[in-house]
């Protein structure tokens, strides 16, 4: 669009800013109420917090044990991401380069996992994890996320590798490198853009996932942030100021990371889905 910044553009700008202000109203209500004591919340919930208090925040931080929940979420997300990138990229490299019926069949088998809703295997898997004694453990969640997100990860990696010339790896093989070396030293570094997409999309999914951690970790000391927040809100449901301070604290880490990396995150969400 080569439009000058004329009157029509100015009007559009006003409309878009008005839309953004209306869009942000729930966020304003959230922050405003989290900064008020019980009396102010009851008397004037939506007014601007003229006498802000941070008491809700310190109370929410300790009574929701958010520190522990953040640690649990970080460990589970980080280790799952490492496993997904490692297993996913190796598998996709095989599937992309194995251009016969075996390779194609396995690729379709992986794609099936994108369509299957996880509820179909939810109960058998729950019993299975229970039998292995992995309920309430990091390991159970990490293996779960690796398995459940592999189809999507393999799909993204395979599409990217197929478009990549195989000459680089072949040159390394001719020079006497093994397949492991050729992949890790030559091919994997070339996958950086798609690895970024894989990490961003999976990180947001795993960090925010709710139902499975509720089933596997609910009531244990390994609860992730959404599960902890769910329990916390249920416990203090009548104290809006406290609940909202908890919500702000729980959402803050991912919001800050998003703002810092917004260009990459938006690119990842937009680009990764062009299958």
């Amino acid at each position: 669009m080569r439009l000058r910044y004329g009157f029509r553009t100015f009007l559009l700008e006003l409309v878009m800013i008005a839309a953004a202000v209306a869009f942000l109203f729930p966020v304003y209500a959230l922050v405003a109420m989290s900064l008020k004591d019980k009396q102010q919340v009851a008397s004037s919930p939506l007014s601007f917090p003229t006498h802000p208090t941070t008491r809700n925040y310190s109370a929410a931080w300790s009574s929701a044990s958010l520190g522990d929940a953040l640690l649990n979420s970080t460990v589970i997300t980080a280790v799952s991401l490492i496993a997904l990138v490692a297993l996913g990229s190796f598998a996709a490299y095989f599937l992309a380069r194995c251009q016969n019926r075996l390779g194609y069949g396995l690729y379709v088998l992986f794609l099936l996992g994108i369509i299957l809703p996880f509820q179909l295997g939810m109960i058998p898997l729950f019993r299975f994890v229970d039998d292995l004694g992995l309920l309430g453990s990091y390991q159970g969640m990490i293996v779960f996320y690796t398995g459940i997100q592999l189809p999507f990860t393999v799909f993204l990696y395979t599409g990217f590798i197929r478009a990549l010339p195989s000459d680089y790896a072949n040159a390394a093989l001719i020079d006497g490198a093994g397949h492991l070396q050729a992949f890790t030293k030559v091919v994997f570094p070339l996958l950086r853009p798609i690895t970024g997409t894989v990490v961003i999309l999976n990180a947001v999914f795993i960090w925010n996932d709710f139902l499975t951690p509720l089933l596997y970790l609910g009531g244990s000391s390994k609860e992730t942030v959404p599960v902890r927040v769910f329990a916390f809100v249920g416990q203090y449901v009548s104290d809006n100021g406290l609940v909202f301070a908890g919500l702000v604290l729980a959402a803050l880490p991912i919001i800050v990371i998003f703002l810092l990396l917004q260009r990459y995150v938006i690119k990842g969400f937009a680009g990764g889905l062009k299958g």
Partner: protein
Amino acid sequence: MTLIEDEPITLATPAPVAAGGRRRRLRSRMPPWWFVAPALVVYGLVVLYPSISGMVYAFTDWSGLGGKSFNGLANFRQLAHDDAARGSVRNTVLLTVTILFVQNGVGLLLALGVHALIKSRALLRVIFFAPAVVSPVMVAFLWKYIYDPAPDAGLNGILGAVGLGSWRQDWLGDPSIALWSVAFMVIWQYAGYSMVIFLAGLEGVPPELQEAAKIDGAGTFRRFRYVTWPLLAPALTVNLMLSTIGGLKIFDQVYAATNGGPGYATETLSTIIFKQAFVYGKLGYSTAIALVLALFVAAVSLVQLYYLRRREVTA
């Protein structure tokens, strides 16, 4: 802009033609089987094996305690007569269709607005997209307050302040509007996500085409209808698939905001599956509903993919 847009330039390895020695060397260029084995094992254990078990359990009276025996189609017959389950099918379809149209409509408008040369475009993009990275459970709790029935709280408070007090509602407590309130909350969270995908599509529209249409005398609407819109087909495919699958599987927002209530007014397939299994202990029945959901998702996404991809080819 898009990360894998070079996809069509596939440089396939030349087919092996020469004598045995050369073919052997080419075959050895294929990565060994153990590259794929670990992923296959984890995928098999977490997805394939439990899903196949689920398909089998759907035809049993499994309750979690003691044994289970096959009962044929009894679960599915029960489903056909279970008002809560039938209502959940209806609610799930209504929610999905609403989200499909409204979220993508709003997302497209936002994308067109933010794509124009306005000065606040970078900031607005971040603002509209931000809710999509936050946990749906937390967004639901925030909206639970916005939908607070008290006259001076949340949305009702705003309506009162601007003189529309008569529009106040018990947004989540009134069975006739609760489902729409849930849909609105989901759309608020994910309209920015649709926007971002449409934006990627818009950035792929060559400015020369716009320019040429303009010189030919096409107005804003006609330029959009005949130049931009057909070229947005791939972005539309992705958006429609994402919102359909997301809508059909929706659980977190409903569970946190209404838990399916009031009555069964906002019950969805996923909340019913959860309740039948973990509240009533009817594991066989629950997996039967899950199988119905799976067939739903598979059928709709395959049909959509087929039609939308065909549209992309003609565009």
